[in-house]
């Protein structure tokens, strides 16, 4: 295993040292946030703040989860969960269906639809916020889960991934299904879906993180604090004017806001890496 380019001795330790330094620098902001979420407000208000956790952890997290500042963080976490899962499942379902239609059928305007979907790649929500906001407001979807989810579930990326995958599925399978008299939907359900299982799971991980981390869209359309998502809700917890912010509670909320997506990345690392490398390439 150890070839000629495998480093030994001092160079090896230097590599480890630089990497550990890199990891430490990358983790430092999060460590600091965690420490801040375990101490009391006066300890932070008099800098420098401690670098080791205090004894207020339970107190701060209880306050954040059940009282919060504008709305309890538990409510915001639930909103984020609904939004993230809604976006992930929504994108996967509509993309699976349209990719199936485009690959396995010939129908009028097929290429027109294909290009229609393709063009959405060029329209991130940040670019068209004002008119999209007006459309959603016009549909009466402000402060609703539908308003949070639907404008974000149309995506060309997922459709292309499934299209590319379906194209690699051997023709013999569809041929056999046809000879056996199976309907198209039967083939889709019994053969194509089970074969796409890993791809669906990998995509779900990526899309869950994408949905959970949305900021601008929930900021615009949820004016009611009880509909806020946790990622956008943090900024709303800062007082306007000169009052000092309730840092322990805000930092506890930040930790809670990053916990689910980080858990997904670490817990499903293999799927995550696969999803990321393959969805972007």
């Amino acid at each position, binding site marked *: 295993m150890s070839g000629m380019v495998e480093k030994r001795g001092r160079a090896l330790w230097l590599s480890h040292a630089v990497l550990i330094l890199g990891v430490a620098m990358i983790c430092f902001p999060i460590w600091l946030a965690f420490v801040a979420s375990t101490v009391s407000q006066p300890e932070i208000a008099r800098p420098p703040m401690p670098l080791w956790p205090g004894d207020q952890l339970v107190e701060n997290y209880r306050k954040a989860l059940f009282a919060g500042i504008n709305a309890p963080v538990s409510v915001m976490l639930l909103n984020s969960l609904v939004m993230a899962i809604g976006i992930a499942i929504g994108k996967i379902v509509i993309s699976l269906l349209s990719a199936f239609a485009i690959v396995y059928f010939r129908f009028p305007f097929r290429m027109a639809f294909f290009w229609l979907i393709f063009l959405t790649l060029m329209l991130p929500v940040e670019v068209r916020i004002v008119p999209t906001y007006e459309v959603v407001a016009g549909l009466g979807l402000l402060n609703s889960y539908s308003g949070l989810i639907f404008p974000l579930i149309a995506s060309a990326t997922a459709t292309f991934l499934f299209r590319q995958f379906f194209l690699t599925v051997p023709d013999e399978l569809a041929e056999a299904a046809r000879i056996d008299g199976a309907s198209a939907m039967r083939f889709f359900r019994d053969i194509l879906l089970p074969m796409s299982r890993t791809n669906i799971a990998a995509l779900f991980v990526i899309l869950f993180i994408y949905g959970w981390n949305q900021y601008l869209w929930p900021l615009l359309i949820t004016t009611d604090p009880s509909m806020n998502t946790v990622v956008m809700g943090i900024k709303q917890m800062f007082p306007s004017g000169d009052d000092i912010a309730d840092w322990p509670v805000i930092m506890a909320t930040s930790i809670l806001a990053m916990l689910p*997506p980080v858990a997904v990345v670490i817990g499903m690392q293999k799927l995550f890496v696969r999803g990321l490398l393959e969805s972007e390439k």
Partner: protein
Amino acid sequence: MKWRCPGPSAGTPTVAPSGVYMEKRVIFRGKLLPLALVFPQVLITAVFFFWPAGQAIWQSLFIPDPFGLSSQFVGLDNFRYLLSDPYYRNSFVTTAIFSLSVTFLSMGIALLLAILADRLIKSSGTYRTLLIWPYAVAPAVAGVLWMFMFNTRVGIVSWYLGKLGYDWNHVLNGGEAMGLVVVASAWGRISYNFLFFLAGLQAIPRSVIEAAAIDGAHFWTRFRTIVFPLLSPITFFLLVVNVIYAFFETFGVIHTITAGGPQQSTTILVYKVYADGFVGQDLGSSAAQSVILLVLVGILTVIQFKFIERKVHY
């Protein structure tokens, strides 16, 4: 198996360079069923993408009266006004500085860490686990974390800087504000770039590098003449993707740390669309900015696909 987005020639019944048929030979019959299958996606795309994009183009040609009751057709006046507005032109410069800094900072650190991790074959997996999870931290949360560290009143870094005699104040100092949003935006991006660089490095056959080592090439020579050229497709890909990220996905960082200030010194284009449209209520100008951004995204996407096509020909 690689998933790739098709280039502009996709869909025509040709054989892709890899030998994979771009079209199925076995298909199912029926016209209504496939239409029903594409319907949900087409409906959502039409309602939430094309309708608003059309609205943006339409609104960019009008100026609403002060009461919002009617609007007057002004042709390209909104664009003309925008392009002569020093604040808007400045926002282009700000965006360029910001996105290039974020891209080079995060890619540089990621490449260094990936090269080191790649050499430590046995523990590269451990370092990968330790380095990839910040990807999951939302830009807005990253913004809050960095704003906390550099907070002028309680921030620990700004406090120590003060002890060293440096008076940090990103609320008043535009340069410091820019530095802070760049670092906060690059921070979460290191994971992503690291993952791609590491995958790219691990795809280079060991034998090639060992052959060079036998020929007496030192590490730096090997890197310059073999590794980096082989990495260049991934580097170019990351360059484009990171610029797109810095353009469009860093809104959360800017909104939480500086809100575009001080004196618009961190107002990137996407932030200005928001600030003028929602805070300033200048809908005509905001719509014109949206249209300009649409063109920019279009150009970036075309570059991205040109690159993917080129990669297919390798």
